């Protein structure tokens, strides 16, 4: 197992390297002089000269690639053109929102998707099954942003004044603000030190932070603001997980050992959960891993619609402002996260199915 883990880790290095190379060459493919692209058309020749010197743009391309990779390994993603501040700082501020949203969405997708898939498989060809599968088909075909807008219309406008009302945008109701947990605990950290950034990063997870600081008002408010975006974001993964669960369960339910388990008088529920589902789980978790990519892409659209200040929204704004360092930095971080999650999925096979020996 240890050996396999190491080999699998080593194998993902070329892919990560490839991701960096692709984003690097994309940045270089921007038409025109990078100096004018970054500093604006009015930049003078002297400033450009200094700019090229500073970023090593006058060196051969492979040296530049080396510098770029070195910088990223050091956590230096360059500066945002629009904000003139390091992309890394923007990431620290914005990434927690996106992670919170994606996490919430994938949890919804997994629970609802798997439950729906199992119920569909057990009651095959029943009305429930047909409705679920038609729903899943529609779910994968829906534009995320459209669903988000429709949900906002329904819950924020049509249900206004009822207890079901949900806020259509933002992360917290105006006026509420969470106190960072490190301030509550009195963990002082000098500004602009590594420790400060780490604490800042974690305190930007509002759910985590409000539980730590026992600020229930903020917790409920955050969750309330998360429901609509998470619902919109989770539909595609949910539908795909439900479909995969159904077909995988159907495959397993045909097996003789299921009939044997039923024949020896085990309860239907325990046969389905212990004998069938465990064996059906492998393809399901593979799909879950792959759907994380859909989530990250969807976050760009969902956050834009719901006014959540996450990396997705930032990406949208950066695209409009042609702030390429931000786009590049976010793409690298998200693609790396995606590779990493699928690596975890691969490694989890052994725990899920002990028959698999990874040699």
């Amino acid at each position: 197992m240890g050996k396999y883990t190491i080999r699998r880790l080593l194998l993902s290095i070329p892919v990560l390297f490839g991701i960096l190379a692709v984003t690097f060459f994309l940045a270089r493919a921007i038409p025109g002089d990078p100096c004018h692209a970054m500093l604006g058309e009015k930049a003078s020749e002297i400033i450009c000269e200094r700019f090229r010197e500073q970023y090593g743009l006058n060196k051969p391309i492979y040296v530049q690639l080396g510098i770029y990779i070195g910088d990223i390994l050091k956590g230096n993603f360059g500066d945002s053109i629009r904000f003139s501040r390091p992309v890394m700082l923007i990431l620290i501020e914005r990434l927690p929102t996106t992670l919170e949203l994606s996490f919430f969405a994938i949890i919804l997708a997994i629970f609802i998707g798997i439950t729906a898939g199992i119920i569909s498989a057990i009651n095959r060809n029943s009305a429930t099954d047909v409705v679920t599968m038609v729903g899943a088909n529609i779910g994968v075909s829906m534009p995320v942003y459209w669903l988000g807008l429709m949900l906002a219309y329904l819950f924020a406008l049509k249900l206004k004044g009822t207890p079901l009302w949900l806020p259509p945008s933002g992360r917290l109701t105006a006026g509420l603000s969470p106190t960072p947990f490190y301030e509550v605990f009195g963990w002082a950290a000098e500004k602009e030190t590594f420790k400060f950034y780490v604490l800042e990063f974690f305190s930007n997870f509002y759910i985590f932070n409000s539980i730590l600081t026992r600020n229930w008002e903020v917790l409920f408010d955050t969750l309330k603001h998360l429901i609509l975006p998470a619902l919109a974001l989770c539909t595609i993964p949910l539908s795909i997980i439900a479909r995969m669960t159904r077909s995988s369960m159907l495959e397993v339910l045909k097996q003789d050992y299921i009939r044997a388990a039923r024949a020896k008088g085990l309860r239907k529920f325990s046969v389905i959960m212990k004998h069938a589902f465990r064996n059906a789980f492998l393809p399901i978790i593979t799909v879950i891993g792959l759907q994380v990519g859909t989530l990250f892409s969807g976050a760009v659209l969902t956050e834009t619609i719901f006014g959540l200040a996450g990396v997705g929204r930032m990406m949208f704004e950066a695209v409009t402002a042609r702030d390429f360092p931000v786009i590049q930095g976010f793409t690298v971080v998200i693609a790396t996260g995606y590779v990493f999650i699928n690596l975890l999925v691969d490694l989890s096979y052994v725990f899920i199915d002990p028959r698999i020996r990874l040699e």
Partner: protein
Amino acid sequence: MKNKKENRNDNNKKKDYRSNSLWRLTLRRIFRQRNAMVGLIIIGILILVAIFAPFIAPYDPEEVLIGVEDIKKREAPCIHFLGCSEDRPQHILGVDGNVRDEFSRVIYGTRLSLLIGFSTVGFAIIIGVTIGALSGYYGGWPDNISMRFMDVLMAFPSLLLAISIVSVLGPGIENALLAIAIVSIPIYARVVRASVLSVKEQTFVSASRALGASSLHILFNRVLPNAIPPLIVQGTLGIGTAILDAAALSFIGLGAQPPTPEWGTMLGSERNQLFSAPHLVFFPGIAIMITVLAFNLLGDGLRDAIDPRLTHQSIEE
């Protein structure tokens, strides 16, 4: 049920003199897939709508109706049949923010969306097949390098990579299409490579080689035809994805630019008016959904028909 029986009788009658070729079997299976048929019918209708758009649409999709008719911008749908006053001009799906007929724009949007779907997938298939076929057939280091490159492309969430590519190339429908096509190349390359690898060592290929056929001849006439069925499945599903992604790019302003009647653009430009004019957001979204759904249904049905392992029908019968 009745249909099935008839079909079976049909089989028995014709079995004596008609060969059951793989294609015919597959076609028969496709026609038996209800989902695939529903998808196919919807696609057929959409194609007709796209072709006859000028006859269906009551207005020019880009015509601003200020001064032409007595209407305000973002006016709600007015359908005479459903009780809208006869002296008001009829706008089935309402009027958009620039006082254009929404229905005509949705109808013309079909053209663009289908064009987007077919052209991106066509382009991606041509490049993907070339890469996949050559690397699968010849193997060695070119295969290794190109497949690792495909791995890297697949390591990006697809829409995100497309956004990056378009933000480099600059916004616009052509660039958006190119980006979506590039992002979907790896799937086709992999599909083709896999089927090339599975057949290239088989006896009929060796026989062809023994007869002195050239490599290219073997590749195109013996090996590649085997890759067509999975490509058709993947391509059909890919059209749905491409339409969805293109609409998303247009929605965030990277794809088709106004005043082009593109569903994503239409949605994007009116999204801030959601609460005052929900119809302008609702209808383009429904149009996207129906189109994507049709291709997904057809693609799933084709997959079940072509790969009998995945369907449970074949076991029961």
